[in-house]
């Protein structure tokens, strides 16, 4: 069915009808508590997205994460601009790395079984339906059993023009014992064109696989951005995911990690640098479906200006998921009197012999910490920036990839200087 979205106009029409049938989120839904409904107006983005007509070279030049990568794709307004292919050796080992619509046709069985298979469990059913109705492209990455890709793979999605919409999609299937790191970069081509971005990704980690996934969200600050992430962690697999939230006017991320195999391990990380009138709405779900699994979440928010953040996290230990270890921490650093941090750390435990804890704190820069830096001749503004950067970098470093961590740190700092 889902492959038909890319081949059959009738299937696409059905998806559009489905979108019309799903109601918009309402204030009565707990999954939308504290959310700003005024920000969710989709009406300006009803027209089809105009093709990219900007400066292609500038976009390509701006599409670099790390110098050493295993591959790179660049999209603008849901059109592929460039694709640097993986080494032949990996292709020979059976790695499939294709634009989404190509993979849908070339590998229908793999595609059918995994594409949007778990919907949007954290409230964005309406936006997921819109994604299905309008998704054009994205990346499909399949890593066969036992294959290790040591360098990261980078994907860039740019949004350009006034009132355009983009629907980035990432589908990653990592076979048993495989190893891969994928980084999505979302970028606004212009600083202040109103845009809509509804992204969706599904990650599958097979038995014993090691998957690192990073999403750097840097749309412009006039963009309404919604991102749905479903991660499936198999037996003894380890998935580390990191969201770096920098851009967007209202940016909502829904990250669900399903621990489906015994001994699965999931690390969920996020850093948010929130300024001006930005709103970051983060909903997370650590769903323990198998016994003996481990999950740990660390979300750090630094809030300046009149910005707002919402964190709603849920650890759910399903019946029978005994011997679960699950942890969740959110830290809010308030830098201004007009900033607002909302935290809803949640637990639902239906199993036995479980170790679970969560914590949420909201505070500000310690006067002593600041004084220490001032006493060493560092100007106030720089001292504050250093402290904020250190605060956020701690979560980035949990990724355990020094080169990537340093690059992400630079991006965070660039935002703090702005």
């Amino acid at each position, binding site marked *: 069915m889902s492959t038909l979205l890319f081949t059959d106009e009738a299937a696409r029409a059905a998806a559009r009808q489905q979108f019309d049938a799903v109601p918009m989120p309402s204030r009565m839904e707990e999954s939308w508590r504290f959310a700003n409904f005024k920000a969710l107006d989709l009406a300006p983005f009803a027209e089809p997205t105009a093709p990219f007509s900007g400066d292609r070279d500038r976009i390509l030049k701006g599409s670099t994460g790390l110098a050493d990568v295993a591959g790179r794709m660049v999209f603008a307004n849901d059109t592929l601009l460039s694709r640097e292919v993986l080494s032949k050796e990996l292709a020979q080992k059976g790695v499939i790395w294709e634009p989404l619509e190509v993979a849908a046709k070339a590998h229908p069985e793999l595609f059918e079984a995994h594409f949007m298979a778990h919907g949007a469990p954290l409230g964005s059913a309406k936006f997921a339906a819109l994604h299905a109705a309008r998704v054009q492209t994205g990346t499909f990455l399949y890593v066969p059993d036992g294959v290790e890709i040591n360098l990261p793979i980078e994907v860039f999605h740019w949004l350009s023009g006034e009132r355009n919409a983009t629907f980035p999609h990432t589908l990653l299937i990592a076979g048993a014992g495989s190893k891969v790191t994928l980084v999505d970069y979302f970028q606004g081509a212009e600083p202040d064109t109103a845009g809509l971005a509804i992204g969706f990704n599904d990650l599958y980690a097979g038995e014993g696989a090691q998957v690192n996934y990073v999403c750097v969200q840097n749309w412009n600050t006039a963009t309404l951005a919604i991102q749905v992430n479903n991660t499936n962690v198999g037996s003894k697999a380890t998935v580390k995911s990191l969201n770096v939230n920098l851009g967007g006017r209202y940016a909502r991320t829904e990250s669900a990690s399903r621990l489906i195999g015994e001994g699965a391990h999931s690390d969920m990380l996020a850093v948010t640098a929130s300024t001006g009138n930005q709103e970051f709405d983060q909903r997370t779900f650590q769903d323990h479906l198998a016994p003996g699994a481990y999950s740990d979440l660390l979300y750090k928010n630094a809030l300046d200006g009149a910005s707002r953040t919402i964190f709603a996290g849920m650890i759910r230990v399903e019946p029978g998921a005994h011997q679960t270890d699950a942890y969740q921490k959110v830290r809010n650093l308030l830098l201004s009197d007009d900033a607002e941090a909302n935290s809803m750390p949640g637990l639902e435990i239906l199993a036995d012999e479980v170790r679970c804890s969560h914590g949420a*704190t909201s505070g500000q820069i310690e006067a002593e910490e600041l004084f220490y830096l001032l006493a060493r001749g560092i100007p106030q503004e720089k001292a504050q920036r250093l402290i904020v950067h250190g605060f956020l970098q701690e979560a980035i470093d949990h990724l355990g990839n020094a080169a990537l961590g340093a690059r992400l740190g630079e991006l965070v700092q660039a935002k703090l200087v702005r």
Partner: protein
Amino acid sequence: MSQSKTELNLDRSAGDFSYPEHHAFDAGYGLTRDTVNYIVDVKGEPEWIREFRLKALDTFHAKPLPTNWATKDLETLDFDKIRYYLAHGQRPTRSWDDVPDDMKQTFERLGIPEQERKFLAGVEAQFDSEAVYSNIKKAIGEQGVIFVGSTEGLIKHPEIFKKWFGKVIPTGDNKFSALNSAVFSGGSFIYVPPGVKVKHPLQAYFRINAENFGQFERTLIIADEGAEVMYMEGCTAPKFETATLHSAVVELVAMKGAKIQYVTVQNWSSNVFNLVTKRAIAHEDAEVKWIDCNIGSRLTMKYPGVVLKGRKARGEVISIALASNGQHQDTGAKMIHLADETTSNIVSKSISAGTGRATYRGQVFVPKHLKGCKNNTVCDALLINPDSRTDTYPAITARGTGNAVQHEASVSQISADQIFYMQQRGLTEGQAMSLSVNGFVNDLVRQFPMEYSVELKRLIDLEMEGSVG
């Protein structure tokens, strides 16, 4: 490990007794304007209360059930099958001799007279919806303390009553506060004059003793400037087969520098829906402490709150919940900071046993431009059996710099090693279990007045020891 844990089977027979019903005033089943008018007429209340009640009734009908966040179990409540008012037609009496014999027997089993002899300052015992026994010791009366039923309070002391009634918890706060506002009867009205420190706790016992009978008491406590008072309520209810609704509203007002402690031990029988709204306003430098223990009922939804309105006001909630087979204890706390340097503390411990479900639900709100506010919240949950469930749903809003808010929660269970260790030293499995559970809640139990903490420990022993074997 899982197999060694036997199902908890609670012995509630301690509360399973009742006496013949002969209610002189009975508003029948269901809720209409006639029911409300009937209550006002029977109680001889003034017209402003009639208007207040009728308006509340409309609000009740207009409000949806909060099932968007609360349990769907609420939908099993049939509001047409409940009796909203029922009384013996007795005014509160001052002398023990005036109390009917069958009620005396009930109170005897609850141990009221004995406790009074020991230390109680006054007793306000409620049988069904009217207070049948009310006694304030001379000393307190002389200090100017008012301790009467809510009806007597609104009729005899309107100048104090009207000023605060419905102000801490507005009628429209939620569906059940509206219901209470429409049909309330019973509960206490307490006023403590400036500077008066009531040495002994004031106490009230509530009971439900009629099938399909909802009890809607209304309590309003005002501690004037610098006054101090402790109020205790405990509940047991005879067991009936059809669900019973209990929906109280409790409002506390602590004026400048006043202190109020409100202690509850809730042990309704396991068919009771206990949907209670409790909130306090703490003015400058005042202190309000809710000590709340929930052991009984089928479903309890109760989140005592403090609105910290004056500078340096302090609020505290100490909560213990024990959810056994078939029970859902949905409890928590609310702290609304509205002034600088206000502090609040929430400590919640819950135990889920058998198929029981314990839920912590909380709200902490620190709005902008306040300085020096602090909140600390700690929730610990203990799971006893594989089918037990525990949830935590806090919502925390912090704005601006200069405040510190932190929330911590953890879930654990009694380890097999611990039980084994104690069994090696000659304890039975049940004793070992009960010792562990008592250890888990011990630091909170100690905060209860002596009588209650002894009673609580005994209750936990009873529930735990009866469970294994």
